């Protein structure tokens, strides 16, 4: 079972689908599809680097540390 250390929480009501989070995520954990708000496509890939949370112009992303599961 893979360890998931970070949960990506997206406030979809605030997201304007600019695509920045998806474009710069180093592990492509996020996608922004046409006419859709940002979505966590690959939650397991997330390393908790915090780039998306900081880059988001809509302040719509919050990262939550999770306890690692064995």
């Amino acid at each position, binding site marked *: 079972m893979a360890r998931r250390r970070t949960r990506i929480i997206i406030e979809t*009501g605030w997201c304007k689908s*600019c695509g920045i989070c998806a*474009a710069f995520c180093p592990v492509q954990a996020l996608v922004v599809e046409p006419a859709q708000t940002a979505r966590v496509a690959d939650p397991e890939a997330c390393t908790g680097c915090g*780039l998306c949370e*900081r*880059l988001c*112009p809509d*302040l719509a992303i919050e990262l939550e540390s999770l306890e690692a599961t064995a």
Partner: protein
Amino acid sequence: MKTRDYLRTRFFPHLWCAGCGHGTVLNALLRAVDHLGLPKEDIVMVTGIGCSARMAGYVDFHTMHTLHGRALAFATGIKMSRPELQLLVPMGDGDALAIGGNHFIHAARRNIDMTAIIMNNRIYGMTGGQFSPLSGEGTAATTAPWRSIDPAFDAMELARSAGASFAARSTTFHVRELEKILIAAMEHKGFSVVEIFSQCPTYYGRKNQAGDAPKMLEAFRDGTAKLGSKALEDDPQLIPRGVFIDRDAPEYGASYAELCKKAAAESSPERRYGKEVPRC
């Protein structure tokens, strides 16, 4: 505290366009505030007019949305009256350096303790995409359909000449660096200037075929280099980022407090309005 604890969340989603860099600046600024542990009731945000100025409505601080170009003057009055408060002054490039240029120069000259944050998107966004003095020759805008003949100037050089004791530049791509710079700027006792290249995909981007928001951020990444880096040495055409000025200098409010002490000590009936009364 979480970032949203500093926001007036009832007004979200905010009014800035999708991909506008100003939201990223707000993001970094709130992280810097949180890092410093500054209580909300100790923070005053004064803005001018424009897209940048709307930041005031979104933060749960003491906020004042004033007149185009004049934020630093209002802030000076507030700071001189309440020197213990933390003054944050986000402005646009036209707001700070065109109509506000004079107030920028003199706030820097006085070295009054406040943090000027220039969100430089090289355009007047709110009014519909007119060029600004930071747009630069050859750029297109709604008042430069034949392309601008106006040269731009370097805000860091202007800050230096005016006497700023802290001046730094970053971009909305370099978010970690930006947060560190904002922390240093707020901690600095004196006038701090932080210039931030911010993307306006709606006007600057479209008019100049600069692409969407991610594309514009890539341009900030690829078109700039850290001060003192090899990349900058190899290609001097790159725009330098980092801290340009960081020195200690007498802060205006502190100097004024000293002046008041001196004046009180030297005040006497023989001095009317501070001047010696001539004896006839």
